[in-house]
């Protein structure tokens, strides 16, 4: 009869083997939407995220600087009082990777988030809010970058 410990060890070894062989995707890759992050352009990203064409909305409060002296650190924030916003994505139109990040909100948090992004050059930055009922709204702002944050 196998002891529990042996059993655990063996299944861990099998899991490691499967993981190494690429049968089981590494945990880091399971939920990360690779396609969306590799997609080019705003439309490409929205398509990869599987969402409808966004409509510009005053209800999405998007704050970003007019001029970012250092493109490596651009503080941005978005908030909205609209109910039912499930996800908010940040897109930088002219970045090599258009999609910067996607935040998913539960009911326990206010639908708003602030973070810092990198920008390669002066570009429009979009905050795209995806509602639970499939509606997609966005707000955008042009941020002028005097020193790029990519390459260099």
């Amino acid at each position, binding site marked *: 009869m196998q002891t529990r410990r042996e059993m655990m060890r063996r299944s861990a070894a099998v899991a490691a083997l499967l993981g190494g062989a690429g049968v089981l995707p*590494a*945990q*880091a*890759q399971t*939920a*990360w*939407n690779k396609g969306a*992050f590799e997609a080019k352009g705003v439309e490409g990203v929205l398509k990869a995220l599987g969402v409808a064409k966004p409509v510009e909305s005053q209800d999405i409060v998007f704050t970003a600087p007019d001029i970012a002296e250092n493109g*490596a*650190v*651009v*503080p941005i*924030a978005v908030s909205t009082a609209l109910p039912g916003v499930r996800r908010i994505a*940040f897109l*930088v139109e002219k*970045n*090599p*990777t258009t*999609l*910067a*990040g*996607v*935040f*998913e*909100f*539960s*009911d*326990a*948090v*206010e639908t*708003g*988030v*602030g*973070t*810092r*992004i*990198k*920008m390669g050059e002066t570009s429009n930055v979009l905050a795209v809010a995806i509602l639970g009922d499939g509606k997609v709204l966005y707000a955008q702002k042009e941020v002028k970058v005097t020193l790029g*944050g*990519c*390459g*260099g």
Partner: protein
Amino acid sequence: MSDPMRIRAQVQGSGAIVRVLMSHEMETGLRKDAAGKTIPAWHITEVTAALNGKTVLSAQWGTAIAKNPFTQFTVKGAKAGDKITISWVDNHGDKRTDEATIA
């Protein structure tokens, strides 16, 4: 193992503002080193925030999030003494979890 995150969580109004500063290189995979070789991408891909063990916010990040990422959000109905746990996973499979108590 990477450096610990700095997490500040403070009650404000009926909720708590959580500010997180992570320590990560966030390489884009586009930069070149002095020898002209491309530095491979190395960035955080997933972030989750939990209040007392229940996930309240999650995020997927690409390479365009700035180095040493900063994130701020507000948790509704959180009280002083509640525990905020933040975890991240990067594209190397490294992970880190840190906890803070709301003040």
